[in-house]
């Protein structure tokens, strides 16, 4: 009888994790994927990520060309360089995908996200929330005597920072759109 010394947890991973990657350093990449706006296309993209064990940090999608029936999907993902290359190649195989752009390597890009935050509180906390919102250029889109809804746009880390500050001040709900991104310049 040969004893098996399998590392704990080794079998709970997919075979992909058993492969040594070319570099272990994980990178964050923002991909812009131009797709034909046909039924199921988002399911194909999401199914690719879940089926192959890739990460999705954020995903946004909307039609950007009504006459051409094209939608733009912006995906923020994290992985080793090899995995990022695979993700791009795999996206490129999907038949209704027209273009795949890696905004992280194709040049400087701008990333923006919109968030709405509901902050519930009264007294000093309420005043402080309003003051901080002003510093972050967040605007008030709804208010009651005991709550605000702030709207903020910016890079995701700016929104993270704002949310962190609002938490002790009564942050009760947050809705984020996910990242939209474009290359700078022409």
């Amino acid at each position: 009888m040969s004893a098996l010394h399998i590392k704990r947890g080794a079998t709970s991973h997919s075979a992909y994790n058993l492969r040594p990657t070319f570099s272990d350093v994980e990178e964050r990449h923002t991909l812009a994927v131009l797709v034909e706006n046909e039924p199921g296309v988002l399911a194909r993209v999401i199914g690719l990520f879940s089926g192959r064990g890739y990460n999705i940090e954020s995903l946004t999608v909307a039609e950007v060309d009504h006459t051409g029936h094209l939608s733009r999907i912006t995906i923020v993902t994290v992985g080793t360089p090899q995995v990022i290359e695979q993700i791009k190649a795999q996206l490129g195989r999907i038949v209704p995908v027209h273009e795949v752009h890696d905004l992280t390597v194709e040049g400087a890009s701008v990333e923006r996200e919109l968030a709405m935050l509901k902050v519930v509180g009264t007294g000093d906390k309420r005043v402080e929330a309003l003051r901080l919102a002003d510093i972050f250029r967040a605007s008030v889109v709804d208010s009651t005597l005991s709550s605000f809804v702030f709207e903020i746009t910016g890079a995701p880390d700016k929104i993270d920072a704002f949310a962190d500050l609002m938490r002790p001040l009564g942050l009760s709900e947050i809705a984020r759109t996910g990242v939209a991104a474009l290359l700078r310049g022409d």
Partner: protein
Amino acid sequence: MKREMTGAKMVVQALRDQGVDTVFGYPGGAVLPIYDEVFQQNDIRHILVRHEQGAVHAAEGYARSTGRPGVVLVTSGPGATNAVTGLTDALMDSIPIVVLSGQVPTFMIGSDAFQEADTVGITRPCTKHNWLVKDTDRLPVVIHEAFHVATAGRPGPVLIDIPKDVQFATGTYSGPKAMQTHYQPAVKGDAQEITELVAAMEKARRPIFYTGGGVINSGPAASQLLRELVDATGFPITSTLMGLGAYPASGENWLGMLGMHGLYEANMAMHDCDLMIAIGARFDDRITGRIDAFSPKSRKAHIDIDPSSINKVVKTDIPIVGDVAHVLEDMLKIWKARGRKTEAEAVRKWQDQIGVWRKTNCLNYRNTDKTIQPQYALQRLEALTRERDRYVCTEVGQHQMWAAQFMGFEEPNRWMTSGGLGTMGYGFPASIGVQVAHPDALVINVAGDASWLMNMQEMGTAAQYRLPVKQFILNNERLGMVRQWQELLHGSRYSHSWSESLPDFVKLAEAFGARGILCTDPAQLDDAIREMIEHDGPVILDCVVEKHANCFPMIPSGKAHNEMLLGEAKTEGAIEAGGAVLV
């Protein structure tokens, strides 16, 4: 050409316009209008299978043996779900298949209607692409696009889901020329990369061609060019399971199959080479073994039409995205223009070294005159059939590996096997598809007893259409490959890996009006094989073989190429912890 007709008529017309001569299918409520059209015409032959999985595998056999897409017609719900294994098989092995499935009428979709299934949802991950057609005018356009997608670039299966009301409704038919698609994978490789590869070939001292199913996919011209290139350079060549036949087994530079159950000389040459030229092969884990020990000293060039195959598993130094035939043509042109240079002396020494490895005689086995050894059975089958117009299919298991080791393929498209998914039950229906495409050829399915039972209902199909397929069952009364792994990995605890209550295969054949032959004696084997070949009709040859034979050579999971097991030596514990989690 624009014409008004029903959706069901459009289906038949579109198939006709795509040059389809055969459809494998099984009817049901949601495809009755299409079946009604099939009934009223004679251009397209419909083969009624006995299970939809069989239809897809038959279409795979048809496709692989002809180079044309295989076509399948199934009903909604269970018809479509039964096709899923075949679709996944075709996806893994890059086989072009077009499946047409019926669906409940559009106005009932989503209501859990009778025999409703979310077919496009279920088959999304196991097709190259799929469509639900809700508008009759779109139907012909989608069908033409489907044929294009299935065959262009890296081939694969596609599915078109057609609600019943769309089949009944009338619309305007449009021919194949009306198809518009942005899907146009590049076929020509980058000239600079090709030149870099040619330069590497000129300097290589220990080169090897590592070829795969992509050469077959690329068509006969690719095999022709490959032969020219190999013979002109004198470089040794090995192939994956999927690429057998692209280069002839009788060719001077042929090393045999590589990989887990490949030949010692092929694997050693891969391990020690200084230039590896991968052509239409995808560095499957059955090939690479332990990745960090995979051919550590070589530069690697990779020609593949699918960019995702490149750098997926192994880092490539010279990546070339393109179709095999196109790239090989350019390679040859450039190599010739630069003066046909190779390091001939070094390559000769390299061939000598390979000759030393070859002397290991790694396929050696102990023959007996009491029981039929499975290897012997395949050697005899090979000897008695190789001169014929022969096509070989297999099921999955030890017999499949032995067939790959002991049979020689001289031409592409003559070897049909389930490599990527390893689907037991593939071979029998595949042999039916091959025979339908090549009515006069000798079509043999090398099977294991367990695999064969998985789609044995197709005896009905073989009998009905008088398809003289030869079922060569290596009967070891075991799930042999599983038993082998249990011996190596699980202390010979043979958990559920034997075939209890096997049928009497001779009677089973006779029950379907076919010929059954039993052979248990090595001395009678040749006669049995001859009888199988000569009989004009389907045959089951129940070839009772040694029950405990193991398939060698074998690279245990998680080991390097140069750590092959060559024989019955010490095998227990050969797979270590790291390898044990691998399949």
